[in-house]
């Protein structure tokens, strides 16, 4: 069972957009300055609250992408998402803009650097974000825990963080990345586009006997399917942690 700590009062803080980084045609990273950010554990999220001039407010949660050692906090937002918060963050927010944020919250979908078990990360589309935080945290802490990422995307142009992942596969010892392309494959790719299946997960993941810690994040349908495949392959259900962020995506 995960540790429970007395956490103190959760307050809304003011975040200022320091920089915007275009990741793909459909996604961008917001780099935020958050004064007195208390730090976070890889996999945690924040709630973002937007308030209109008439006092109407709305909120949504976003996974944290940056490692805890960073002086700024990074979130990744998708342009295609509906709702009231994402379209603003993905399309309107500019450097210097401010909004409210609280966190970090969530102790379930987290990776503790002290845990020596090998790690399997399974991402569907923008479900990569909390998993990228784990990969960045692993590097920042010089962890030697073996990591494998299976990253399902519609096509090569939809793969957020692809350049950084390629660099980390080269530089971060013990990190492997395997792509699953569901709609369009790169030139010369050895297999046709298709969904993540048991064979691909078996090739790119860990044998269940290694008792890996598995983290699955993505759209609801993807998460259900991937988690079922992992349990069917012999992984204990309590070692397969999931985070769903709703419909659509990769």
């Amino acid at each position, binding site marked *: *069972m995960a*540790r429970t700590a007395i*956490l103190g009062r959760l307050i809304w803080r003011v975040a200022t957009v320091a920089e915007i980084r275009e990741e793909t045609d459909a996604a961008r990273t917001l780099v935020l300055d958050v004064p007195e950010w208390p730090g976070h554990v890889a996999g945690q999220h924040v709630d973002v609250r937007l308030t209109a001039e008439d006092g109407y407010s709305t909120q949504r949660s976003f996974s944290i992408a940056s490692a805890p050692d960073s002086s700024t906090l990074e979130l990744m937002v998708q342009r295609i998402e509906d709702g009231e918060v994402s379209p603003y963050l993905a399309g309107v927010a500019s450097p210097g803009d401010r909004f409210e944020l*609280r966190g970090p919250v969530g*102790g*379930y*979908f987290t990776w503790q650097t002290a845990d020596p078990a090998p790690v399997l990360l399974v991402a569907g589309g923008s479900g990569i974000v909390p998993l990228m935080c784990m990969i960045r945290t692993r590097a920042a802490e010089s962890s030697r825990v073996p990591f494998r990422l299976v990253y399902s995307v519609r096509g090569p142009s939809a793969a957020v963080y692809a350049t950084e992942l390629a660099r980390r596969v080269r530089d971060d010892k013990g990190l492997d990345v395997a792509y699953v392309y569901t709609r369009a494959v790169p030139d010369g790719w050895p297999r046709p586009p298709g969904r993540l299946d048991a064979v691909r997960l078996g090739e790119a993941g860990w044998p269940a006997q290694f008792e890996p810690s598995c983290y699955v994040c993505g759209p609801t349908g993807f998460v259900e399917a991937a988690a079922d495949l992992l349990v069917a392959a012999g992984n204990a259900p309590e070692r397969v942690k999931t985070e769903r962020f709703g419909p659509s995506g990769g």
Partner: protein
Amino acid sequence: MTDVWVDGNELAGPLRELFDVDVTVARGRCVGCGREGMVAEAIVFDRAPGLVARCPGCNSVLLRMVRGPGRAWLDLRGVTCLEFALPDTP
């Protein structure tokens, strides 16, 4: 798929307004089917005036939370017991 849901991870912030511990890593038992699991594993519907968490085993309502101006309502009708790993007070 027409249903729109997320999961109990999304309850972490709203429940932290009420409790000093992270309720999403508490283990609970469903009144409907007896399934035990962490609150984070619940199916959560958030496109409503509030949050509704349902059991992933039998779909019974586990809890509902509504945050209004100046107050909040928490309905734990579907959870018999919540178990927390809690350090001993020194």
